[in-house]
């Protein structure tokens, strides 16, 4: 039986999520024995033509050319998995969505006319159908391994959709909000990292994006009562998942003063 063909695609991103595949030092060669790595430019010159059984897509859509390219990737892929905050929400570069991209280009480049860019950074799912999303900035490589293993076995991957709070409790970390009054996005943030930040004594900063139906209003009220102003609260939700709807709406609510 032919091995399933795996492809890895990059859009606007830092390369960190696809690096997670190469960071599976114990499993990489075993995976390469089970799948044909057919398109993975960061790791190989050899490119095998599609169609592909599984495509992992990193990065967000920020240029007219990329908006076209993602359609070609979708057309050549049986299963399309987006990996990381850029692909699932637009990433940190989606901060342009709240500003003026021409102004941004003028700040960085002397000749902004050479730069082809869209005025918004958007998630892959805003452009094409996505079969599965892996959250995180960066993704957790154990979750990536679970996705690859599950797809090879033909079962659904076990990717919890609960909050970071639940992982934190399971880890036995004392709550940083309760014990230190530290602002923490754990109650509204999608699980998957293993609740690293609280274990290091800092509040969660939401790099896995919003959980399902997060109560951001309740959280911001709690934090606001302990002294954080609206301008700072706005910034708290405007980081690596700024364009994820629940975080975007909360930051806009803080900005408008509602």
């Amino acid at each position: 039986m032919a091995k399933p063909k795996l492809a890895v695609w990059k859009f606007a991103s830092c390369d960190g999520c696809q690096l997670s595949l190469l960071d599976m030092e114990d499993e990489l060669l075993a995976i390469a024995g089970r799948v044909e790595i057919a398109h993975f430019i960061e790791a190989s010159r050899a490119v095998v033509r599609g169609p592909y059984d599984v495509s992992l897509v990193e990065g967000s859509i920020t240029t007219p050319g990329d908006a076209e390219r993602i359609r070609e990737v979708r057309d050549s892929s049986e299963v399309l998995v987006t990996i990381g905050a850029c692909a699932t929400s637009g990433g940190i570069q989606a901060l342009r969505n709240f500003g003026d991209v021409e102004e941004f280009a003028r700040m960085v480049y002397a000749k902004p006319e050479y730069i082809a860019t869209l005025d918004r950074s958007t998630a892959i799912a805003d452009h094409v159908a996505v079969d599965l999303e892996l959250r995180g900035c960066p993704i957790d490589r154990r979750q990536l391994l679970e996705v690859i293993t599950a797809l090879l076995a033909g079962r659904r991957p076990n990717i919890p959709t609960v909050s970071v709070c639940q992982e934190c409790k399971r880890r036995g970390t004392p709550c940083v909000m309760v014990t230190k009054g530290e602002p923490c996005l754990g109650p509204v943030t999608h699980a998957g990292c293993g609740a690293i930040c609280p274990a290091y004594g800092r509040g969660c900063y939401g790099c896995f994006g919003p959980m399902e139906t997060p109560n951001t209003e309740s959280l911001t009220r709690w934090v606001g009562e302990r002294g954080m102003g609206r301008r700072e609260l706005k910034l708290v939700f405007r980081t690596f998942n700024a364009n994820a709807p629940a975080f975007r709406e909360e930051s806009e609510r803080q900005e408008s003063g509602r």
Partner: protein
Amino acid sequence: MTHSSRALSVAALARVEGEGAMFVRTRDGVVEEVRLDIYEPPRFFEAFLRGRRYTEPPDITARICGICPVAYQMSACQAIERALGVEIPEPIQLLRRLLYCGEWIESHALHIYLLHAPDFLGYESAIEMAKDHGPIVERGLQLKKSGNEILELIGGRAIHPINVKIGGFFRAPTRAELRPLAERLAWARDAALETVRWVAGFEFPDFEQDYEFVAMRHPEEYAIARGRIVSNRGLDIDVAEFEEHVVETQVPHSTALHARLVERGTYMAGPLARYALNGEQLSPLAREAAAEAGLEAVCRNPFRSIVVRAVETLYACDEALRLIEGYDEPDRPSVDAPPRASVGHGCTEAPRGILYHRYAIDEEGLIAEARITPPTSQNQAQIEDDLRRFVEPRLDLPDDELTRRCEQAIRNYDPCISCATHFLDLKVVRA
């Protein structure tokens, strides 16, 4: 065979971090144009940092690069701490150096084994190489993992660590927590020594260039996270003087800016530069390994950068062990760093070379202006220069072979295109 008119092009350079292309055009055996096209989409970090809190750049700028996030965190911290006039106690500085060693090991092992070695041995990828050289690739992966274990323990995770803050760390590890790391690193040091011997046996094209090498230098250590910026042609400046000496220009074919030294031109940053300028500060074990590998005090053949990278990997393992051995838990994991209106500059040695940051902060602690110059944009003009000189005497090679060799020449620099835009397809046009 005549080559009156010829073009080579690679539309998507493989085994580099990020997206780039290469284009070479020749006419009558003379190279007319060499371009590294960087088409990685721009992400505008310097723009959206404006208005953010002064405490945020370590977390935000880490996201410029998934391969060297610690470099971004360290340059950002240094710049902002200098702006605020905060002195970082020695134990915290040493812990940062240990974290940085982890990134050097991880990034160098990735480049040596997975990205560059396949060029020397004639494979398309390390995964293909593993079919014939399984134990060697396994060794490389485990070496890389050793670096990642440092990052995970001290940083919280390998990619975009969470434990670094302005003033120090959120939490400092205990001596007992570091102990298992030392056992792993003792193995890694042996593996790194084997790595130096392995890559020293590769065949290298005869290609020596007279570079201006630019690196950090510190009187007491092989500079990584602190020091002055120096060159082999007399540059010796404080980090704050960087922009007076380095000019960045924009070219139409790149979303990365090109850096040059004022009135002097291109220069090289990275392992060859560090080795040339600071090689005598390497540990005895690393110096012996370099000598055994046939490296002289200065290496001007960029293809041998893989050997120097291996020597630096060995050094980073050795140094990490030394730092763990002498580790004193800091009294507090961080020092206070209240905001004030100020400007600060930071520069540290990312695995690919010096990485410069500047921030202007207002009295409320908001970022008023940010400037970031990554190593790949500093090396980009030098890479094009190398390609021009490398291609001309080799125009008798067939297109696919010449293209392959040009890609290898580009990978000598371990270019990180994600960083540079904040790189590559090869195209050779022979006309």
